[in-house]
Structures are given as C-alpha cells and as structure tokens.
C-alpha cells in the first residue's frame, strides 16, 4: 500500500490533568491504522501541556501532540474547542479524527463535523482499511444491525468510539514526540457560556456513573469486611455497591443496590465479592466491561458472567489484593 500523507488525529479527553483511559485505546487504534497506511498519529490535547502525559501519548503510539493553550485546563469551552479543531482540520486535512464517545468527546466530534460538513460516524465499533479508504462499522436499528460505512469523497472522517470497544493495544516502539503549541481559536458566534467542573466526592459517586465498581454480597459475612471492598473501590478510583441482601443486612444504603430493584450499571470494571449471581442481581450489571468474580463456590452462577473467576475466600483475599494493587499502582510511593 502506498504511504498516505494525511495524519490520523486523536482527541484527548481529560480531567485534572489525567487523560481518560479511552484515550490510550484510541491512540493504539490510530497507531495500528497509521502503521498500515504509513502515516502519523497526532494527539490533540486542550490545556494539557504536561511532559509526563505527552510521554504517555508517545508510548501509546502518538508521533506528535497539538497542545491548545487554555486558561483552565478542566473547563471545556465547546465553541472555542470546535473552532480550534475545525480550523486546524480545514488546513491540515487529516484522514480521520478519533474522538472518545465521552460526554465531551461526543459533543465536540459533532460540533467539528458540522462546522466543516465532514462525515460523522458516531459510536464506531470497528475500523478497517479498504481499497477505497477507511471502512467504519457502526450499529444501526437499535444495535440489531451493523452498517459498514465510508466517507464520501476524500473528506476527513470524524469518528467517535466508546471506551472498551476497541481495547487497549500495545504502543510498540517508543517514539520521539514532536509537540506543537497553539493558541485557542475564538469562536465567531459563541453560544455557550461554560462554567467549570463540579467535582464528585468519591464517597457519594453514584454506581450508575462509576467506571469501577467493587460490589459486596452476603459472602463477605460482616459489615467490617464490606469496608475492605470499599477500600479496594477507593484505591481503584471507583465506588462500592452491592446486592439486595447486602443492602437488607444494613451493610450498604439502598442507593448502592445493583439489580432488578436497584440500579443498572455499566462500569468498565465490576468486581463481585461474595455474590452468588442471582438473575435479579446480574440483570443490573451484565453490561459491565470486565467482570471479576470472587466466590468460594466454584459453581456460583456469577462465574458464568465473569472474565476472571477467582475461587477463593474473599475475606482472606481482599486485604492481600488491596496491598498488591497499591504496590502495582505505586500509590504508596508518595
């Protein structure tokens, strides 16, 4: 295949100076496509001028970073971001821009696409290189059909991808990153006055919005052991939830119950501790990205849903797991 001169861009969504994990999935996918086409991967970051983050982008596959300067790195200014990205896209004409289908990523993707009349492919599930350009697969008909689509002509394809759809890929060889700093463009007709981010106390984070859930069931035996699950959740940046039995036993408030008569959750990671896996519970968590189940009973139904089934005593395991996770994360380094 002859080398393509048009870059592949990835929009970096971030909070508090930390790119959302989906960024690295998209950079890995962009790298894979760029290697096939012989082109470059460019990360586009607003207000994230940080050497450590840039090194992370390079390790994940970026050749270059476009850093747009902002006064508040957490604030998302939709009009100005769209004007900046669309302006640059109009001159540089990338082949493809990948946006995470996050609250901000999906919003910005549509704004950019409509500014330049570029084709928008929301919630793509697969990207391939075909004879006549990039083929993008996305769901139609409430997800019951998949459509294989492509951009008409040579227009830049604007694509959003949800977290965990493509999965993380190895970044390959380390790259020397070229960093380009740019001012934020002013929108011609700004329509939205955006305020700053209102943070959420991890202790009150709603399970329906958490990326990681550690869930407690009757198998934890006592309220004190539920605290171990809460500690693991806090360490992984997630929240504690549980079964109706755990709620009925007074170990958790009702607002943390997952299942038929509780919440429906879709976290990236669900760790079920001492949970049997009754249908009334699993109906609320079956769409979790990765499920780790910890249960002493090798025949527990929860294992049927699990990506990793650990047949072990959760009360014995949790303190060790917390310690080992802490070490792996390096959270005891400070």
């Amino acid at each position, binding site marked *: 295949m002859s080398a393509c001169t048009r870059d592949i861009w990835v929009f970096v969504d971030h*909070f*508090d*100076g*930390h790119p959302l994990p989906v960024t690295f*999935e998209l950079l890995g996918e962009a790298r894979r496509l760029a290697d096939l086409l012989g082109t470059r991967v460019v990360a586009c970051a607003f207000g994230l001028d940080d050497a450590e983050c840039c090194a992370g982008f390079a390790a994940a596959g970026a050749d270059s970073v476009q850093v747009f300067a902002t006064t508040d790195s957490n604030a998302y200014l939709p009009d100005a971001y769209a004007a900046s990205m669309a302006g640059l896209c109009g001159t540089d004409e990338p082949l493809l821009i990948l946006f995470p289908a996050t*609250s*901000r990523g*999906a*919003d910005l*993707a*549509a*704004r950019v696409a409509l500014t330049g009349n570029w*084709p*928008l492919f*929301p*919630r793509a599930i697969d990207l391939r290189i075909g004879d006549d350009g990039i*083929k993008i697969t*996305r*769901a139609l*008909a*409430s997800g*019951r*059909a*998949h459509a*294989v*689509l492509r*951009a*008409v002509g040579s227009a830049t394809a604007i694509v959003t991808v949800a977290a*965990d*759809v493509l*999965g*993380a*890929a*190895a970044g390959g060889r380390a790259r020397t990153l070229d960093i380009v700093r740019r001012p934020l463009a002013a929108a011609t007709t700004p*329509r*939205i*006055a*955006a*305020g700053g*981010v209102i943070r*959420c106390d991890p202790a009150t984070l709603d399970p329906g*919005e*958490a990326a990681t859930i550690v869930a407690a069931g009757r198998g934890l035996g006592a309220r004190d052991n539920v605290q171990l699950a809460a500690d693991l959740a806090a360490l*992984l*940046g997630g929240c504690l939830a549980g079964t109706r039995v755990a709620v009925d036993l007074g170990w958790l408030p009702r607002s943390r119950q997952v299942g038929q008569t509780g919440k*429906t959750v879709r976290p990236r990671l669900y760790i079920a501790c001492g949970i049997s896996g009754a249908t009334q519970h699993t109906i609320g968590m079956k769409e979790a*990205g990765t499920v*780790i189940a910890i249960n002493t009973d090798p025949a527990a139904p929860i*294992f049927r849903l699990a990506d990793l*089934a*650990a*047949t072990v005593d959760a009360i*014995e395991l949790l303190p060790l797991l917390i310690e*080992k*996770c802490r070490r*792996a994360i*390096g*959270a005891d*380094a*400070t």
Partner: protein
Amino acid sequence: MTLEGFVLMRPVLSISGRLRVAADGVSIDPACVTSVVDNADLQALDVALALRANGELTRVTCIAAGQAAAIEALTHGLALGADHAIRLAAYEDLTVDPCALGRAIGARLGAAGARLVFAAGGSDDGDAEALPHAIASTLDAACVTNVLGLRLSASGILVERRLEQGRRERWRAGLPAVVALAPQPDHTTYVSCAALAVARHTSALDTIGATACPPLPPSAVALDGLKPPRQRPKRLRTTAAAGAETAHVRAAAAGVVARNAGHLAVTGPAADVADEIVSFLSLRGLLPRADSMGRRR
C-alpha cells in the same frame, strides 16, 4: 412568555429474529423490521411536559421524520401528553447520515419558528449524539448535550451536564437552543395502552408530505453493506507487549490459571490469586495509572 417546546422523536427500528439484508446489499428486508420506541425519547418528552405543567411552555409538539416507525414514535408522544405531532414523510425510517437528516429536520423546525427543542442525547446506534447538533446548526441555535437538569429563564437556559465519574458542569445559553438529555437507564417512562389507543385515532398528528419537506442534504456517508451484529461482544485486547512473560502467563503454565468456558479461572492460595488479579487488571489497562494516583492524593 409564550414558548412552544418541540421534542424530537426518533423512528427506531429493530430486527425481529435475525437480520436479513435485501438483494441490494445495503437495505434491510422490510419483513424482518419492527418499530420500537426508545425510552430516551420519551424521557426528553417528559422533561418538556414537566415544563408545560409548570407553565414555562405553552405547548409541546413532537416531530419525527420517517415512515411507520415515525408514526409509532409520534403516537407514543401524543399518548404521553404532547399537544401536537408533526411527521416529515419525505424521509426513510433508517438513516446512515444523522447529520444530513438532522439538518433537514432543523430546516423544518426553523420554518415552524422553533426556539426550544428537546431530544434524546444518547442511543445504542449513536444517532442521538448527532441529530441534536445537526438540528442546532441549521436553526442557528445553541446545542447543550448530556443534560441532567435544566432551568429556563427570560434570558435563556441554564443546564447541568453529566460528565464522567459523577462530575458535572454548568452551561448557560440563550435561545434558540437544542437540549439533548442525558440517557437515564433506570428511569422508564410508561405509556398506557388506553392512551395509545386514543392517540392512534387523534387528529393531532400532521403529516408533511414529501413535496413540502425540506430536501435532504447530500449524504457525506456512503453505506457499503449491512451485517448482523457479532453474536458475542468482542473481547478486550490486552496491553501485553508481544512476547512479554507476565505473571499471568507463568501461572497459566503452572496450572494455577485455567481457561474455563470462555473465562479465566483462578484458584489456589489467596496471595497467588491476588497476584493473578493484579496482573489481569494491569493487562487490561484497568489499574489506575501511577501518576493519577500520586496526584490524586
């Protein structure tokens, strides 16, 4: 203040049984298509109806573009309490370019003098992420997305948006505006059968014929083919670099980890199992990054 609220209702198709692709390769055999109503659209309508009940909107009109599925969606809208419904009959129920369709709907809403439009902001197929923006761009309106809470004032709207991990942000915008609401999976809106039966015979549904509908802008997206969805969700690829010997792989070789009915099964002393879980989390990129933990503290 007299303000009419418009609510976008999407014709949503589903497939009964297995997808059958028509002979042209790019359309669905109509025999396997059924119409469904997306709860997210009904939630958007609920918000508009609550504002009407509060006296902040004088009237609520639902709008949909399409055929049988659009009629179904609008009938549900009327059954739930909308005053009026408009169907744009020039378009198909299924679209591959929601931006083009949104622009056409926006043009019609502009002709109707719309200043406040509500829409679902999320759907399995992603259309709901594009339509509100496309409508707003044609109406020359502000588009606010992922909205959880809304306040109307004389100067416009103040909304609270949902961000990842429980975060929120507030946006202020003037009218005209398109409000795309955050999906709320635990909030189901029920439509009574009696109300549906009445709505099927009401005269409140206006059909705008093909000649009176705004022309569909040329599509920027080409459809190459349709296929049934993968039966099983794609498994996550792991971050393991090729050839890297992980604790996990070592343990598999030692028989601590076994492949069992599609998942990994781990058993043994708790310390070994803990090592396996950490290794698994790290392979899947599910451990928080060291820098983020360090800075969070």
